[in-house]
């Protein structure tokens, strides 16, 4: 049963990701990417990780993709242009893809031969209780660093996306005088 669900969602994820790369229109790519994220959330549920599945839907399929689709619609992007300069990049892409696929096959073979790869029946690692306990005891410092990183991202995004601020400040001062 779990196997059938795994192959269903894995197939969905792979199909959606291929569609994402194939589509020229960035909006269709974004919607395919949401399909990949939802399929991966289902796979996390199969892996007995409900917390990660929920965060995947909230953060990736929710926050990040809303931001991406907002930017696509804001910039009113048209279809992706054909490669004009750097035409050899297609060849590089094919070779890179083949190399990575060979590596994946190699890893699959190496791992499937090792014994002791049965999942334990009782999966306690994915419980929110255990993750929270690890997060606020053993891994407190990385969590704090992640918080600082997010603060830096907020400040950086505000600085990057403001425009003509100098003019506005001068105008404001003139109005005040």
């Amino acid at each position, binding site marked *: 049963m779990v196997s059938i669900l795994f192959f269903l969602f894995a197939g969905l994820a792979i199909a959606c990701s291929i569609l994402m790369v194939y589509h020229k229109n960035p909006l269709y790519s974004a919607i395919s990417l949401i399909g*990949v994220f939802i399929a991966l959330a289902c796979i996390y549920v199969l892996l007995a*990780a409900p917390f990660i599945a929920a965060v995947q839907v909230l953060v990736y399929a929710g926050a990040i993709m809303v931001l991406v689709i907002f930017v696509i619609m804001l910039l009113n992007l048209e279809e992706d242009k054909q490669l004009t300069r750097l035409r050899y990049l297609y060849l590089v892409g094919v070779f*890179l893809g083949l190399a990575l696929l060979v590596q994946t096959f190699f890893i699959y073979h190496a791992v*499937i031969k090792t014994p002791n790869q049965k999942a334990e029946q009782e999966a306690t690692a*994915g419980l929110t209780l255990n993750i929270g306990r690890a997060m606020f005891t053993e891994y407190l410092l990385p969590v704090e660093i992640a918080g600082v990183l*997010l603060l830096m991202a907020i400040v950086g995004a505000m600085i990057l996306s403001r425009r003509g601020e100098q003019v506005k400040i001068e105008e404001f001062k003139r109005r005040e005088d």
Partner: protein
Amino acid sequence: MEPSLASYLALSGILFTIGAVGVIVKRNAIGMFMCIELMLNAVNITFVGFSRFYNDSTGQLFVFMVMSVAAAEAAIGLGIIIAFFRNRVSVDVDDASLLKN
């Protein structure tokens, strides 16, 4: 029958491959950005898979870290794309080949 660890790793590898090829082939900055997100997700499957098969929470904690880095990357990356679009009226990475202005 449950799928083995190897099948999760294979899924992760295939998704990573598609994402890496997409980064090379796409010329659109937002398309490349989405392919990078796909690669990060592929790595997350590996983390959660090992966490399940060794019954250890650490892997899932690091998935959480990867997600916060991805969120920061989304905010900064899209800010850069908007700033670039404002200057060049394009998000084609070929137009970003000059180190002037």
